[in-house]
């Protein structure tokens, strides 16, 4: 109900304000143009975030100081902490960065956003920026009409900056003209009462405008023409800092638990910083005066002093919170836990896919790869248990003929059941998510994504082949005919060896080990094909097995061959890191089918 009432009331109040005061209309238009400029600026940077920005983020946040540095730098350049926050949530949700790194970026972004106040205070109010805005808008629009995505991006950035400058100009003009009719400074309230009231107003204004940057510009322009007192402006700036967390909370709503934790960290940080600023406001003012004097800032230059205050109290916040980052991470992990409902017990679901990572191709690709690896773990489990083998024994160093003697369960598991519990939903979600992610991807990424989808399909088909194989495995593993029993035991041993080697490939970083094992798997797949190696013919010729057994064995050897082949294909796609040396030369060094045959011919 309040939501439904809020919009009409706001529109009515604004309408009344425009009708009664042309200056109020000019200030409001200035804010609207400024916000539109920010949207345009974000749009422009998003074009470039399709590669460069996400790569920088991925590579420059391995240490806390680097994360903070990235937050400061990126927000200073893009003048939008919201875009940095959304990007961080997206990377965090995809598992590309950890929570402490994410918190570091958010802390840095808080400090980076203070450069906006400096730009407006130093440059925006002292130079006729509207004269720069016009050519920017014209050039920007021309660039937006171009076909090239990069030029379009540049166009959005120029238009964004143009609108920002124009917005500031209108706000400044509006406040100057406003002063001639109403003097807002006469409503100034001193002491802690004023401090709390103006902090709340700053918060409210930021929540409404969804931008602390816009609130700060409004405060600075009002302060520049003396419409608000310095002390009240400081309180408004503190309020704006707390209010800005609303943007990241809204951003985190569609994200997974990691995104929610980050938004909570942002809220805790900004509230703590705000409380410190309120409690120690008079001491901080003295500190600001001292620094201002050191840098020869005039005593009555309140706009610059406000920018300095904004930077100082955010820096204090970072210094105070920095030693507690690990504690904060622990606290958030304890308090905010992933929800599990009773119905979902036994049913595995996606871990890394959520809509918050869709916007950036690097993070959506990382999320899909991680989810596919999650699917691989389940596939490994189903195939191992489907063969009635223990997963732990397969990945151990135990001799394989011993491994097959240790059964997972008394009865063979129902693979169909396992498939529905651990594969079907995840596989479906990966395909659905991939289709959505593709819309924001470049052709090179789409090609990679296609290969990942093939890897997923290979796994699902390998499970289905295991299901077919299982029927006769149950029948012949304990059969009195020692020949047929031996053949089925061999199938089990070969598949256990395959799973063991794939597990090594999945867990090692040594590229030479990966390439050698992949070749070994290909050779073994071919070598173990009993139709090709003559074992089946020999068994039939010597009447060691019945015709019925021969038919079963022939069919099952095809299933075993297909499982091996498909899991090899999957491993080649999934376990060679996209950025590794091996990936660059994979085509050049990978063994081909004809080479496999040549090697086997030599051996024979």
């Amino acid at each position: 109900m309040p939501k439904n009432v809020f919009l009409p009331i706001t529109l009515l109040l604004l309408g009344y304000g425009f009708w009664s005061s042309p200056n109020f209309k000019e200030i409001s238009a200035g804010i609207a143009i400024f916000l539109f400029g920010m949207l345009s600026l974000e749009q422009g940077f998003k074009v470039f975030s399709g590669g460069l920005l996400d790569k920088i983020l991925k590579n420059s946040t391995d240490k806390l100081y680097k994360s903070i540095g990235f937050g400061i730098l990126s927000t200073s350049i893009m003048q939008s902490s919201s875009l940095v926050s959304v990007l961080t949530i997206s990377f965090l949700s995809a598992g590309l960065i950890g929570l402490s790194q994410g918190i570091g970026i958010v802390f840095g972004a808080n400090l980076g956003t203070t450069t906006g106040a400096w730009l407006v205070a130093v440059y925006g109010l002292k130079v006729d920026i509207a004269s720069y805005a016009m050519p920017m808008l014209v050039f920007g629009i021309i660039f937006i009409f171009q076909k090239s995505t990069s030029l379009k991006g540049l166009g959005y950035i120029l238009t964004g900056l143009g609108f920002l400058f124009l917005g500031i100009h209108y706000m400044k003009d509006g406040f100057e003209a406003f002063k001639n009719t109403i003097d807002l400074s006469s409503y100034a309230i001193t002491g802690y009462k004023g401090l709390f009231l103006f902090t709340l107003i700053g918060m409210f204004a930021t929540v409404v405008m969804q931008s602390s940057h816009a609130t700060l510009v409004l405060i600075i322009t009002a302060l520049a023409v003396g419409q608000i007192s310095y002390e009240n402006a400081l309180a408004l700036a503190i309020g704006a800092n707390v209010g800005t967390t609303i943007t990241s909370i809204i951003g985190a709503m569609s994200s997974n638990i990691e995104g929610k934790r980050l938004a909570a960290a942002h809220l805790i940080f900004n509230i703590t910083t705000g409380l410190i600023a309120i409690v120690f406001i008079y001491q901080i003012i003295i500190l600001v005066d001292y620094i201002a004097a050191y840098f020869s800032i005039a005593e009555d230059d309140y706009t610059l002093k406000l920018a300095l205050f904004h930077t100082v109290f955010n820096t204090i916040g970072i210094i105070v919170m920095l030693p507690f980052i690990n504690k904060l991470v622990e606290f958030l992990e304890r308090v905010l836990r992933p929800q599990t409902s009773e119905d979902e017990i036994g049913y595995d679901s996606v871990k890394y896919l959520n809509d918050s990572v869709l916007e950036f191709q690097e993070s959506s690709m990382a999320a899909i790869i991680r989810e596919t690896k999650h699917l691989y773990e389940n596939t490994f489990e189903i195939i191992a248990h489907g063969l009635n083998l223990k997963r732990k024994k397969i990945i151990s160093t135990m001799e394989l003929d011993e491994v097959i003697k240790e059964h997972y369960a008394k009865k063979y598991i129902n693979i169909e059941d396992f498939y529905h519990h651990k594969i079907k939903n995840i596989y479906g979600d990966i395909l659905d998510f991939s289709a959505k992610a593709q819309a924001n991807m470049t052709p090179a990424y789409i090609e990679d994504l296609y290969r990942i989808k093939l890897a997923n399909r290979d796994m699902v088909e390998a499970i289905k082949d295991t299901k077919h194989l299982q029927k006769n495995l149950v029948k012949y593993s304990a059969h009195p005919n020692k020949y047929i029993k031996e053949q089925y035991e061999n199938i089990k041993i070969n598949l256990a060896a395959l799973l063991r080697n794939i597990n090594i490939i999945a867990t090692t970083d040594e590229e030479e080990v990966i390439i050698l094992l992949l070749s070994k798997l290909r050779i073994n797949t071919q070598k173990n094909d009993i139709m090709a190696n003559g074992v089946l013919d020999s068994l039939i010729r010597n009447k060691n097995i019945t015709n019925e057994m021969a038919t079963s064995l022939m069919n099952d050897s095809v299933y075993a061959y297909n499982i091996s082949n498909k899991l090899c294909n999957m491993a080649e796609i999934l376990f060679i890191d996209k950025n590794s040396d091996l990936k660059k030369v994979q085509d050049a060094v990978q063994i081909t089918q004809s080479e496999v045959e040549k090697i086997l011919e030599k051996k024979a």
Partner: protein
Amino acid sequence: MGIKKFINTVLESLNMKTFEFKSKKKSLKTLLSKLKKKKVKALRELEFESNLEKRAIIKEELGLITFHIEKAKKRLIELKNS
């Protein structure tokens, strides 16, 4: 001049077109040196292994390593010549 043509001209004038080639060569050299180290290690293992079954496994591995070393060398020569 289209933007793609402009970028290509700049890349050519800065001699950056061969960058990907060089990177591939470098990656191949790195892998080759790792494989050579692996071969030395396997040869040493073979020297001290008396169990026939295990010797056969090491020999098989050695064969595979040699195959990949030869393949990588051949590709490296091709890249150098192109």
